[in-house]
């Protein structure tokens, strides 16, 4: 106590109170802004599974995704580059990104950077009636 004058003490208290007031207000603002409208599910109807025979590769640019049937199992890869989100284009070796030159093979694995991760696998659901549904959000 010996070095803290009354004046310094009050000054400190003032700043503390203003700081606390501001912090409290920020906390309230943080809560207020923390509402996000519910997002509708992003699903695509792919039609009959017979449209995707073994060995076929089908690009759906509206998703965008490529639907691959390698050996009876139908899988889908997102065509969004895992680097910074451009849409990759088909090429001889697989898929090339026009923005920063990342290259992927036909199964979405990285051939050349700057992308580090392979193209994202999307889930394909087989409905009771034999048609396929693609869930574009994982």
């Amino acid at each position, binding site marked *: 106590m010996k070095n803290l004058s009354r004046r310094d003490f*009050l000054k400190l208290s003032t700043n503390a109170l203003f700081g606390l007031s501001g912090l409290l207000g920020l906390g309230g603002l943080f*809560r207020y802004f923390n509402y996000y409208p519910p997002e509708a599910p992003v699903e695509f109807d792919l039609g009959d599974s017979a449209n995707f025979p073994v060995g076929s590769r089908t690009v759906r640019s509206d998703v965008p995704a490529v639907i691959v049937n390698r050996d009876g199992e139908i899988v889908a890869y997102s065509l969004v580059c895992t680097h910074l989100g451009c849409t990759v284009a088909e090429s001889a070796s697989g898929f090339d990104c026009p923005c920063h030159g990342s290259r992927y093979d036909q199964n979405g694995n990285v051939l050349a950077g700057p992308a580090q991760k392979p193209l994202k696998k999307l889930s394909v659901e087989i409905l009771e009636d034999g048609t396929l549904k693609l869930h574009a959000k994982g």
Partner: protein
Amino acid sequence: MRRAYIFVIIGILVLGGAFLPSAFVGTSTALQQATATVSITPTFDSSRLAQPPTVYPPAQADTGEQTYWGMCMSCHGDKGQGLTEDWKNSFPPEEKNCWDSGCHASDAPANSFELPQTGIPALAGAGALARFSNSFELYRHIHENMPFARAGSLTSAEAWSLTAYVLRMNEREVQGFTLSESSGAAISVHRKVTPPASQIPGALIFVGVLILAAIGVNIQQASTGKPNFFHHLHPPSIPAAQSRFRYTLGAGGAAVFLSLILLVTGLLEMYYYVPTSAQAAISVQTITNLVPFGALTRNLHFWSAQFLVVVMSIHLLRVTLTGAYAAPRKFNHVLGVALLAFILLLDFTGYVLRWDEGIHWALVVGANMLKTVPFIGEGLYRFVIGGSEPGDSTLIRFYAWHIFGLMLGAVILMVWHTFRVRRDGGIAIPPPTERKENERITRFDLLRREVLAMTLAAVILILFSLLIPAPIKQPITSFNIMSGDSRAPWFFLWIQYLLKFGDPFVMGILIPIFVVLVLGSLPYILPNAKREELGNWFPRGNRIAQVIAVLIMAVILVLTILGAIPK
């Protein structure tokens, strides 16, 4: 020294501990997503056709379940599966026979009806509610089209409880929440939403921010003895007579405080408000029902706006009844009346932004009134509405006027008005030689009083905001269907009542403009109070103006009350 710091820090932590948790509680529970699987609350023991047990007290969906059992289940199924073969087979043979033999057909006994050719859709499960986006749309469909044989026979309460039950069948029921015309549009049918539980933490935060800052302002002055920024907004000292509450009523200061609250809450609302005719009412319902502290923010904005009109009217009456607008304050009186007109227009545009059935007819009538102005009427209407009938372009115009056009004008007038108060020598009192007392108060005292008054005003505002919610009705779905309230907002009820008595141009436009002109020109057309009379209520000098102002205000008040009485 070090121990003192520790002491202060502990003190802060204790104070902070009281308020901060409420700021962060519940941040992680913003949205819970539910998967789209069919689920049933199996309440059938012996038979799928048995009445579900009653629950007490019933939630809205429980009431809906009973109604569903009575009216909807035979066609839509016990799980909302629709009229499937499995469901037909669950009926006793003689009734199953009825499904097969087509007794629900035109040639059957009376009261039968033909089943729809397209089949009876499922109500629950993936895609069942795909054609709707929110509960209000689902409600409207049920209310207008169901039950199939007697469409439109459901009361709106029954339709809402059925809506709640359909949400429950789809695992979208919002627990402890009542769907209604003021909340349904905010509730998605595709994702389960979780409304914030309470507005109290928000109110505590708001009060806490103000009280902590208020204590801080006072301690700061005690610690330094030097004026801070807020002190510098005031003169070093003012005559005590200028700060007497019984003379000023504090109305001008209250108006400034309410304007500040309006600016802040209005800014916050803009982050969620969507100014399109399809989304506006939905976004208002979202703010009110889903955004954390959103209801409090909106209620504060609403109540500040209502009180602002009241407080400004009191201020106008005070200035007139004390003759305070005598020279050199004549022009500032004009600025003040112009500001009142701006605030009324801001209140009206803000009211229209709700874009719900509550404002529907006030907008239509108010806009059509403009058409009655000779020569320029049609042009004026198109200028305000942005086309030949209300729609998207109307809403975006009102939005622009409300948040910027009128706001800018009001801010300029407010700054000008406040500047003139100080320029003209502060609040009106006699010149120094004529004063009975020469007591003065410092700006420190003045600011302390202002801070105290603001805190009190804030508490009153918050109490109103917590207890009486701002109005909201169902979204406008068509500009041709007459439904909902046809009443003007309360501050224009007197004009609505006047409209009963004659030509809309005279009653609705000329008379209100005339009233504003008379009030604004009082200092110029009637005798004023003498300088030595200032600082007191009811000076002799401007008695005529006092009588006229009181009469105008009394007539407006009476007409407002008459207009508020339901027919």
